[in-house]
């Protein structure tokens, strides 16, 4: 079935497709619906839901939602949650959970703030040190979970308190600011302007075309390889429709960004993470082992999978990504504050589950986590734009999470019986 193959590869480009205008998406939705009957129902279901939510708010906000300025905002507002959601998805696939990521993000943000502001450490050095602190914190938690055998819920609940307290100790209850300009760019910077003056941001256009070329090349190459191995292929019509949908999505999205300040740097980071982790989870031995452990740990162990090491690494990775999210958030605020990162873990966990994770582990994709995160992000942004208060926003988000997972459970039961 070339189906899993090709849809997976499109994962590298489908994230921007999520925030695109609905019209060119239509053709893709049809094909996706057909596949949804056989494939990962929740993920495709959520892609459709995301498209519907975008259409709904686009109409409701009289077109403000998809204005270039707002799309850029949307990306910058949600980037740190999306970064966390990628790591969280991997942890959940392995059959665990991490409640500490919000506190850890704020702790690392605080550490970086103290380094840069109080000790005048150059920002690249602070950034790298911060990521290392994240890795160490992840290793600390991974050690207790993997090698000592304390449930991850407990270890990371402890971590949540520990790192929150650590943040307050580091900052002594004060906000620490401001940061060097270079550091702030992580969150609020754009690709530089080059070349002749057009109405659009040149580098963004070039980047968009580059991404498009790569995506199409990858699709075609994958198809040819599959044919070489004598595997079953997606019908040519579907394949072309899919290529057209991807092309349209990338182009529209590129134009949207290019007509404002251009390509945000944080989107570059996010895109790189999505491609790298998507590929890692799909194509690496380590990724495979993660799915196997979450799916059936006993069977995985009896097949020679070193489950302790894999789980340990999942938490180290989560620590690094939490640190990165902490950097992005601190850069956006331009301050290290004791209140940073509160409830981030809940948003990240919700994103993973909306995006197709299973509470028992073994299921989910990195792309799914991004889709789940975008569903939440667009809901937040759209509801704020139309003036729904945060009280009702919470209620609605809670119901969306329940409905997404409930739909999946219902669907599985129907298939099972």
């Amino acid at each position, binding site marked *: *079935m070339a*189906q*899993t*193959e090709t849809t997976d590869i499109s994962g590298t480009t489908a994230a921007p497709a999520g925030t695109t205008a609905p019209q060119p998406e239509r053709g893709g939705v049809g094909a996706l619906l057909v596949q949804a009957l056989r494939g990962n129902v929740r993920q495709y279901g959520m892609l459709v839901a995301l498209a519907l939510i975008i259409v709904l708010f686009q109409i409701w906000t009289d077109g403000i939602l998809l204005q270039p300025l707002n799309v850029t905002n949307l990306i910058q507002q949600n980037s740190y949650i999306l970064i966390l959601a990628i790591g969280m998805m991997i942890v959940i696939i392995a059959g665990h959970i991490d409640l500490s990521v919000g506190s850890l993000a704020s702790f690392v943000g605080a550490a970086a703030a103290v380094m840069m502001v109080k000790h005048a450490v150059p920002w690249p050095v602070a950034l790298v040190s911060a990521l290392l602190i994240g890795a160490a914190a992840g290793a600390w938690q991974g050690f207790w979970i993997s090698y000592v055998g304390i449930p991850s819920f407990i270890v990371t609940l402890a971590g949540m308190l520990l790192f929150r307290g650590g943040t307050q100790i580091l900052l002594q209850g004060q906000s620490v600011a401001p940061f060097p300009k270079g550091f702030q760019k992580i969150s609020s910077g754009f690709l530089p302007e080059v070349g002749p003056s057009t109405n659009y941001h040149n580098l963004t256009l070039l980047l968009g075309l580059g991404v498009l070329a790569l995506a199409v090349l990858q699709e075609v190459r994958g198809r040819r*390889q*599959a044919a*070489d*191995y*004598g*595997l*079953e292929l997606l019908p040519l019509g579907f394949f072309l429709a899919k290529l057209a949908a991807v092309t349209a999505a990338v182009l529209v999205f590129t134009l949207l960004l290019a007509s404002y300040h251009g390509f945000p740097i944080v989107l570059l980071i996010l895109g790189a993470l999505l491609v790298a982790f998507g590929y890692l989870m*799909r*194509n*690496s*031995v*380590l990724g*495979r*082992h993660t*799915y*196997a452990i979450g*799916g*059936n740990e*006993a*069977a*995985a*162990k*009896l*097949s*020679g*999978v*070193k489950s302790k090491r894999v789980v340990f690494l999942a938490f180290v990775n989560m620590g690094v990504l939490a640190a990165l999210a902490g950097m992005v958030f601190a850069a956006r605020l331009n301050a290290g504050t004791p209140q940073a990162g509160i409830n981030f873990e809940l948003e990240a966990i919700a994103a993973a589950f909306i995006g197709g994770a*299973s509470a028992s582990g*073994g*299921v989910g994709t990195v792309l799914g986590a991004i889709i789940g995160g975008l569903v939440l992000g667009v809901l937040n942004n759209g509801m704020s734009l139309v003036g729904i208060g945060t009280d009702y926003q919470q209620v609605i988000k809670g119901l969306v999470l329940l409905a997404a997972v409930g739909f999946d459970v219902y669907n599985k039961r129907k298939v099972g019986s």
Partner: protein
Amino acid sequence: MAGPVLEMRSISKSFPGVKALSDVSLSVAPGEVHAVCGENGAGKSTLMKVLSGVHPHGSYEGEILFQGEPCTFKDIRASEQRGIVIIHQELALVPYLSIAENIFLGNEHATHGIISWHKTLTHAKALLGRVGLHENPHTRVADIGVGKQQLVEIAKALAKEVKLLILDEPTAALNDEDSRKLLDLILELKAQGISCIIISHKLNEIARVADSVTILRDGRTIETIAVDAQGVAEDRIIRGMVGRDLEHRYPERAPEIGEVAFAVEDWTVHHPIDHQRKVVDGVSLDVRRGEIVGIAGLMGAGRTELAMSVFGRSYGRYAGGRVLLDGNEIRTRTVPEAIGHGIAYVTEDRKHFGLNLMDDISRNISLSALGKVSRRGWVNQHEETRVAESFRKTMNIKAPSVFAETGKLSGGNQQKVVLSKWIFSEPEVLILDEPTRGIDIGAKAEIYTVIAELAAQGKAVLVISSELPELLGMCDRIYTMAEGRLTGEVDRADATQESLMRLMTVSAAIDDEQV
């Protein structure tokens, strides 16, 4: 006291694809201890589940009369209300509750939902006295041994005013001393007028407590014999148990047997929780290249435990022994080490230990040897798919594609996926644990052919099976195990079902040197 206390008439019960019971009848007289025996899978447990309402009325054919009245139990509670209590082999006690709390669990001395501890404790003490257990009723169940836990189960049954007590292999987990006490208690309860059905395959045990014995085989009643002169009865019981039809055809083999490839020496394993208990006790065996060697044994013989502990210490606590490959001692302390030495273990429980049921066929097949389809840690999915596709063809795995979820396949096809996984790892030694359990006849024949081919390629194959005809049909040599020990080694030419069963039912009491 006219007529039997229990009569089960013409009970038939089917599961999808399998007929577990056909036309089974069982009759228990008042105050009788009635033994039920049969090989693994003969239908004993299913029959007891029908009787106790686990399989509710309507899901089986036939009728049940208890104390002369027809019974239509819809669940286990309904049968307990009539005084039929079943004690399963795996005890159903809550370890962190006290003895007293366990005895009255679901049956509490309470008014309006508030428990009366005075009544509970008084009654618990009385019941503990009846079963001869001298423990404080406040003691946590986790803190007493398995033998005493068994007595707590019986006290729990007495609290429900049991009239017919069903014990499923009650002594399987007990040492000799505890077994003897338990059997005494059964006789005592009998004297108090409580009838008892005991499922057991320890013949000396049956001879000691049972008044009569019913033998099941392949879901049918073979006969019911009165137990008096034990020597005569034992022969008849063994013959009744093993007379299974040779229903399968086994592939013709011309074994070319080479040097000893795989040997286990003096292997001993302790129970993972109860460290005193030896689950495998000083077992030594060997397998030659091109040879298929069987291990026969009944439930609790320690066969799976032996295999799993050799395969990367995946079961229990290692307490001594060596593994040799081609005459050299090897380390198999972790599963990757064992796989690295070319050992493969195909589990008896494919759903829990063999497959990731959420994942597809191709990823299950490649899991134990992912390195063979990857370079520098990156999986070549096309290559992986091609490999899976070729196994799908050669092993005749019936599925729409190699991307089908394994959880949705039939048992036979799941088993073929597990076998493919291990064949793909290119082992030199294959340990196959119940390779044909719960799969249809057609798939069985295909798996026999695969096993024969593996041996013909010069691999050493060890087959654990509860089906004696299968072992006699496939193996060149057969070991027997009972209660964790090796009790015999027989060449196929000399082996019969009767001779194997005799070795499988040897009790440890004969050579007793447990300290």
